[in-house]
């Protein structure tokens, strides 16, 4: 498999490659690269299965940058060193980047984050793309490419919920179809496989979401019903809906789990959050498959299956749940 890195002595100034900082070296190497790129353009196209991987990720500040670095570690763990890792922004010179990728014989780009995906989409048809580090992608934006979402697989969420509370029968969720339509389809299947009933309310605005939550709390029963909060800025709005949900669920002893790990600190029972290195390995696995076959295999949105768990011990105690095995526990004291 030809995925060994093809490092160049430097990078042009338009791409800030980690570790390449000297402006003079960048200028010289940039000129050399343009020359080599011109040679590459005039060379015959390379055959499928002959390329290397490259990673494009957002040029973003800490602490989120560290997340992408962990994902890249996972990619390199699975695939060996990549051709190059490119931090990108709106200012990135797409043509220059494309030339650089071609020159390095990059067959598949792993695009991380919203900015990484946007840049990769602008590269055109010549280079195949695998996307990770985004929540969801509207179908018209990224047709026919594999995307591993940051949304944890509902099957894993439901299994964890049942393990914590074996008497669980119904899972309520309020979702906005434009964000999570794809996920709810998967969730319905996952629920029925695990003997659960998914009661899903579709809400496109805050007001209807509030109404549905009130309906849910009027009908829900602590022993058998639980509530799922998906990653959704409309139906799980932080300042109005979340406090309402937390208060009512606490008073009625209804377990709430969330796809947003920071909600564990606020008081939901548990959440699953990305195992960044594991996600990197999965993305690398997909990309390697494409390199070998020259074709996309799986396409479209895939839920996150590389997860870690976070639990709120205070809420677990309140709900009478003694099983407390989580990768991370809150509150801290």
């Amino acid at each position, binding site marked *: 498999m030809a995925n060994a890195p093809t490092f160049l002595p430097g990078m042009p100034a338009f791409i800030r490659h980690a570790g390449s900082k000297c402006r003079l070296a960048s200028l010289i190497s940039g000129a050399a690269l343009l020359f080599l790129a011109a040679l590459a353009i005039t060379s015959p196209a390379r055959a499928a299965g002959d390329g290397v991987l490259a990673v494009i990720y957002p040029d973003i*500040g800490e602490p989120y940058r560290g997340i992408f670095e962990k994902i890249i570690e996972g990619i390199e763990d699975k695939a060996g060193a990549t051709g190059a890792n490119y931090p990108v922004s709106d200012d990135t010179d797409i043509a220059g980047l494309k030339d650089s990728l071609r020159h390095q014989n990059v067959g598949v780009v792993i695009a991380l*984050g*919203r*900015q990484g995906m946007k840049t990769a989409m602008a590269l055109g048809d010549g280079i195949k793309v695998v996307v990770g580090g985004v929540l969801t992608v509207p179908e018209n934006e990224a047709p026919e490419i594999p995307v591993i979402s940051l949304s944890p697989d509902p099957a894993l969420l439901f299994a964890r919920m049942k393990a914590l509370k074996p008497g669980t029968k119904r899972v309520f969720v309020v979702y906005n179809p434009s964000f999570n339509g794809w996920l709810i389809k998967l969730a319905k299947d996952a629920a029925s496989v695990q003997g659960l009933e998914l009661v899903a309310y579709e809400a496109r605005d805050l007001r209807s979401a509030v109404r549905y939550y009130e309906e849910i709390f009027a009908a829900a029963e602590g022993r058998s019903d639980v509530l799922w909060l998906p990653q*959704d*800025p409309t139906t799980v709005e932080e300042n109005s809906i979340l406090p309402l949900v937390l208060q009512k669920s606490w008073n009625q002893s209804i377990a709430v789990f969330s796809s947003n790990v920071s909600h564990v*600190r606020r*008081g939901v029972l548990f959440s699953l959050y990305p195992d960044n290195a594991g996600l990197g390995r999965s993305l690398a696995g997909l990309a390697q498959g494409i390199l070998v076959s020259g074709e996309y295999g799986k396409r479209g949105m895939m839920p996150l299956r590389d997860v870690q768990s976070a639990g709120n011990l205070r809420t677990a105690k309140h709900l009478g749940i003694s099983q407390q095995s989580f990768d991370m526990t809150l509150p801290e004291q």
Partner: protein
Amino acid sequence: MKISIEHLLAVLLTAMWAAGAYAASQSEEEELALAYGDKSFVTIASGSQQPIARAPSVATVITAEDIKAIGAADLDEVLETVPGLHVARSPLGYNPIYTIRGISTQYNPQVLMLVNGIPITGVYVGDRSQIWAGMPVENVARIEVIRGPGSALYGADAFSGVINIITKTAADIDGTQLGLRAGSFNSRDAWVQHGGTWGSFDAAAYLRVGHTDGQHQIIAADAVTPTPFPSLAPGPVNLGYDAIDGRIDLARDKWRLRAGYQQRSNAKTGAGVASALDPKGSNFGERISTDLTYQDTNFAPDLDVTVQASYFYITEQSDLTLYPPGYAGFPDGVVGNPYKWERHLRFNLSAAYTGLQQHKLRFGAGTQNDDLYRIRDTNNYTLPPLGTVQDVTDIAPFIRPHSRRVNYVYAQDEWAFIRDWYLTAGVRQDHYSDFGNTVNPRLALVWETAYDLTSKLLYGRAFRPPSFAELYNINNPVALGNPNLKPETNESVELAFAWQATSSLQANLNLFRYQMKDILRFVQNPDTSYTAQNAGRQHGQGMEVELVWDAAANLRLSGNYAQQHSIDETTSQDAGNAPRHHVYARADWRFVPHWILNTQLNYVADRKREPSDTRPPVADYHTVDLTLRSKNQNSDWAVAFKVLNLFNADAREPSPSPGLIPNDLPLAPREWRFELSHQL
């Protein structure tokens, strides 16, 4: 004019570019926040270690990220931010006095300081060494400060509070970091730290060397000024020192071996050991610590067992001119050179059992040996002819070598007796070979009142054993020991509320009362000498309010207000020296990507004098600090620029009663600091 317009245009374009890039990264961050949580949460979640909930208490946790944000170079800058804690100064080397909830004494043995859970207490006066000269914080992963008595778990000196400093492990450092710092008063620091693997070990190492001349604020009058003898006042305080700090941490499987080294040399004398300026005086101190820890979290089902052996060595070597040349027939001044060496051995076993449905049990036992094993005393005032420095170690030293053995057992249970109600009861017995037994209980009732509110009612009792100086000092007429002492005690009741008011606003309120008994003091005898006695009582009450508000995605405001009122029961007057009001406010503003501006305001107010001190109260002060910090993630270089006491406030800490230094101890004027670090 043309140049100006071009310049202005360039600035505007740069600002617009920065704002555009910032907006773009904001939307990316908003999406990531839905999966990973907001910035503060990502920082918590990526920490390698969670604080261990050992007992319900009122506690503050300060992370390495917080330390970096405020541009702190020394532990004391960090501790001043803790609600209810104010760092005052002693004339002796300007050593810190951690005044917690109104309890303030010159040697400050009422605060227990731990490094990785192990005391760094010296046995001579019960403090953290009289040759302190600061503690750097680059290698600190986290600081936990517990206010209130904690002797039921921590034993001796967990009296007004406990400060536990957790150092960085290999995972915390993760790579190699080099750093340089320079600032006012010729202050220079360089450090390197590395975290990685070494064979099958997780290995971390840290080394720092530093120097400062110290600030030179003027002491207008000192203890010699009112006498007929020549005084060095007015003159500057003397705060220079050279420092070396090193630390090693090796871990494999269930074992961890740590070692630490701190050396302070050429450490100057502050405002003078005898409250008389001593520019010639110099101190040398060394502290060496090592511990071997075995922890098996699954020793047996539901049983977590920890075994730890530790060793701690301190030496303090002072060459002092207590009073200046020409004083009372001493042409070279009154010279005293006390040296002492201590070693402490500790062994303990602790276990936590969670196998019972509604109970969490914690129990432990241990033994320690505190040994002041060697002293050396040369001076020119004990033996005739006076004025000639002679070795009096064997004839008339200030103390002779002594040691004590301490054995202890403790047990604690957390009982979930009704839903959302938890009662924690703990008790510890310590047996001291010199004064006998002391038993200290703790009770905590915790009520998870609502989804966003936790209420705690806490009771605790603490003790502070008499130090060797208080037990065994000889030949020092102003501080004679008394072997018949018992520990001083503190009992306190606290009511604490933690309220997550909104997703972006956290508020805490703590109310407390305390009662100190059998306070250890040097009391005047019928002649002019003083002997240590259990004499006096003190009580106090107060409150602390804390707020943390994420006002915007790029702006966090936080702060606290602490109020206390402490009374010396002998005189019914204020116990003195501690601020009745203390306000700390902080803003962290990420105004453009990768640049953070931190502003701190510290207001210290209403400090009464000790009852025997007739001076007017100490003047209030407020200081403002600014820190500008960047992390250029593309280059692994980080820079920070800090201005302390921006408005050059005349800030002073009280000199002790009766006011031998009448105008108190001036703190540093405006100073600056620049820091550069590189991650390899």
